[in-house]
Every structure is written in structure tokens, then in C-alpha cells.
């Protein structure tokens, strides 16, 4: 690598997602997309699952993308991109394309953990040369904050509302990063926009690896998380420092924690600024808070063990 990885150097590149998109003020997803696109030194072709990012970056025929981009349906971003990538390989073989092009699919947690999971799993199993990036904001935010399998334990959503029956989502979230790693693909990673260098390095690494890659990136959503419009980066940083969202990668079966907080903060530091967890701090719900902390501790312990950095 000739140029050093600094913001100064990155800022000299053109950002291939333009202003004028209609994501909410303070949304985490466009920050992620911008970092992913900046990380690449190759031309990118992208597919997008239905979701906030898709609807807000391509309204009517006004697109914020400056790369070839395709939206098909909610459930098939990975399948759609599989087809594009296969066509590319075929044209390359025929000598009709000689450029090195990389393929990236973007999906929210709804389009990835739930509705698009089958096509994602299939594309990974078939071994397509692509990177799938999930921007995980933890619910169907676009349609009005309905729970998804990525919604964290205890979170208030419109389909698991806090009331006399339940106190937010009763189930813990699905650990999709681990499920993707279980596909035995060459590269799986988790990242956060707060740690931009870690994120950019992981994308760069993923793009150099041939075969299917998956990255799960935490995407703060102030509408659904019931937080302020200015705290997307602060909250994603707290998610990492409390080990709610550990930064790690699994490369050819080898797990590596890429950021270990000097001092692991209590989970409450991440939960408290978010209105979706407000009830967890009400009298009577101490047990839920304790359960949630234990889930995070267990997963962090497992990761440290797996990476041999206990």
C-alpha cells in the first residue's frame, strides 16, 4: 500500500454516494456506505436490498449513487448480485471485460437477518466473489420500527411494545455474524462507524480476498433508537466500548478481536441514552438489565476465548 491510511488521504478521493439523499438527519447508514466506498480502490458494482438505504438513496429516478447500483426486491440482494457477478466472470472469460471489478451488496438487518437470509446463505455457499455488508440498525426502521431478529433484547418497538404484557422484545437478538462465520467463508467481520480505520481496513482486506465475504456493521438510527440526531457516532462508540458490539474478524477460521477496550464499560452506558431501553431502568426491571449484561459478558468471554486473548 503506497498511501497511508489517514483521513487526509481518504478525503482526496471522490465520495461515490452524493449529498441530496433522503436518509434522516443524523442517520448512521450513509456514514457506513461512504466509508465502505472510500475503502475501495477498485470500481464497485453494488446491489441493495429493500430498506431505508435503498428507498432514500434512489427516489423516483434521482439516485445518490455514482456507481452501477441495482435494486431488485427485499429478499434477494445477494441472489441478484450473484447473477451480476456470474455474468462478469463470463464476460471476463470471453475477453469482453478486462477491468478488475468488485461486487458489494448492502442490506439492512431486515433484508439480511430475516427476509434476505435465504438468498444470502445461498450466495455464500455457492462461493460468489462478493462482499455482503449488513448495516444493522436493529429493526424495520423504514416501515415504522417493527422488531426484526436483529432487535436487541428488551428494546421497545412497535411490534413488541412495552406494556402490561411484555417489557420490550422478550428474545435476544440473532447472532448473524456467527451464523455467517459458520458458512466457513474466507472472511467475516464486525465493524462500527465510530472506529473508521478498523472499518476501512476490514473492507480493504475483504476486497482482496477471493470468494464470499460478510461484514456486519452497526448503524445507529436516532428515530428507532429514540436518541438524539447528533449521537450516531457516540452511541456506536459506546456499543463497542461496552462490548455490546465487539469489533472482530474471522479470517479462514481464525478469530481475532481487532479492538479491545482498555476498560469495558457497563452495558447501561450504551442503553441509557436510548429511549427504546428507557423501561429497563424502571423499578421492577432490574432483572432484565442484569440478564442483558450477562448476555453481553457471555458473548465477549466467548470471543476472547476464541481469539486466544483472554
Amino acid at each position, binding site marked *: 500500500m503506497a498511501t497511508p491510511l489517514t483521513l487526509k488521504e481518504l478525503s482526496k478521493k471522490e465520495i461515490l454516494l452524493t449529498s*441530496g439523499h433522503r436518509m434522516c438527519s443524523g442517520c448512521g447508514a*450513509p456514514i457506513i456506505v461512504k466509508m465502505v466506498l472510500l475503502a475501495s480502490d477498485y470500481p464497485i458494482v453494488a446491489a441493495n436490498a429493500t430498506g431505508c438505504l435503498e428507498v432514500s438513496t434512489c427516489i423516483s429516478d434521482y439516485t445518490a449513487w455514482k456507481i452501477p447500483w441495482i435494486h431488485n426486491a427485499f429478499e434477494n440482494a445477494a441472489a441478484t448480485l450473484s447473477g451480476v457477478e456470474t455474468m462478469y466472470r463470463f464476460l471476463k472469460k470471453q475477453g469482453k471485460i478486462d477491468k478488475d471489478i468488485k461486487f458489494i451488496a448492502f442490506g439492512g438487518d431486515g433484508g439480511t437477518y430475516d427476509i434476505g437470509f435465504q438468498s444470502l446463505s445461498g450466495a455464500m455457499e455457492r462461493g460468489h466473489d462478493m462482499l455482503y455488508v449488513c448495516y444493522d440498525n436493529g429493526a424495520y426502521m423504514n416501515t415504522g420500527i417493527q422488531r426484526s431478529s436483529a432487535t436487541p433484547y428488551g428494546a421497545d418497538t412497535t411490534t413488541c411494545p412495552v406494556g402490561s404484557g411484555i417489557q420490550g422484545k422478550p428474545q435476544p437478538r440473532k447472532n448473524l455474524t456467527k451464523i455467517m462465520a459458520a458458512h466457513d467463508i474466507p472472511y467475516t467481520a464486525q465493524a462500527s462507524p465510530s472506529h473508521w480505520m478498523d472499518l476501512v481496513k476490514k473492507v480493504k482486506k475483504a476486497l482482496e480476498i477471493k470468494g464470499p465475504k460478510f461484514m456486519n456493521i452497526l448503524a445507529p438510527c436516532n428515530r428507532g433508537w429514540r436518541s438524539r440526531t447528533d449521537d450516531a457516532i*457516540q452511541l456506536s462508540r459506546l456499543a463497542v466500548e461496552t462490548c455490546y458490539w465487539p469489533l472482530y474478524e474471522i479470517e479462514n477460521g481464525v478469530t481475532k478481536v481487532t479492538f479491545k477496550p482498555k476498560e469495558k464499560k457497563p452495558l447501561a452506558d450504551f442503553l441509557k441514552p436510548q429511549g427504546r431501553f428507557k423501561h429497563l431502568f424502571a423499578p421492577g426491571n432490574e432483572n432484565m438489565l442484569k440478564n442483558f449484561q450477562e448476555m453481553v459478558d457471555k458473548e465477549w468471554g466467548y470471543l476472547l476465548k476464541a481469539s486466544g486473548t483472554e
Partner: protein
Amino acid sequence: MKLKGWKNVNPGAVCTEAGSALQFKTGSWRAYRPRWIEENCIQCLFCWAYCPDMAVNVKDGKMTGFNYDYCKGCGICALECPGKKGNKAIVMEEEGK
């Protein structure tokens, strides 16, 4: 920006102009406006990196101000700005005051 009628949209909703969303000025969404205080700026470019709307102008690796045509006033840049000796180089001010 003028929206096309359904008869004029390309078949398959194909967009032929890359980055045409630039025609949509999102600056009107703003309730708070970021103000740059140059003397407190250490040119770390965190504001540029974290802005969700690509509304921080940078030239030759240096922050030069905001693009108010698109800035939605979220305040992320102001919150993340380290500034100099505890003095922020970005402050949010109520729009229209």
C-alpha cells in the same frame, strides 16, 4: 427540482444520470446550523468522515466549511469535533436567528 411524470420515467426505473440526487437540496430540513470556528480547528477531518450528508467541504486535505445546500443540521460534526484546548471548532446554532 422537477419530478418526472410516470410517462417520462425510464422503463425499469433505470437512472441514467449518476448522482442526480444532488438536484434535491436537503438543506431546507435544517433546524440547527453548524458554524465553523477556524481558529479552533486542528484539521483532524472527523467532521468530514462522520457527516452522513457529505456536507463538509474539504479541499487539498483541509476542512474549509459546510455545504449548507445539503447539511441537515444533525450536529454529529459538532459533537465529534475535538477542537483546540477544549474549544470546539464547530458549534450548532438555531437556524434563522
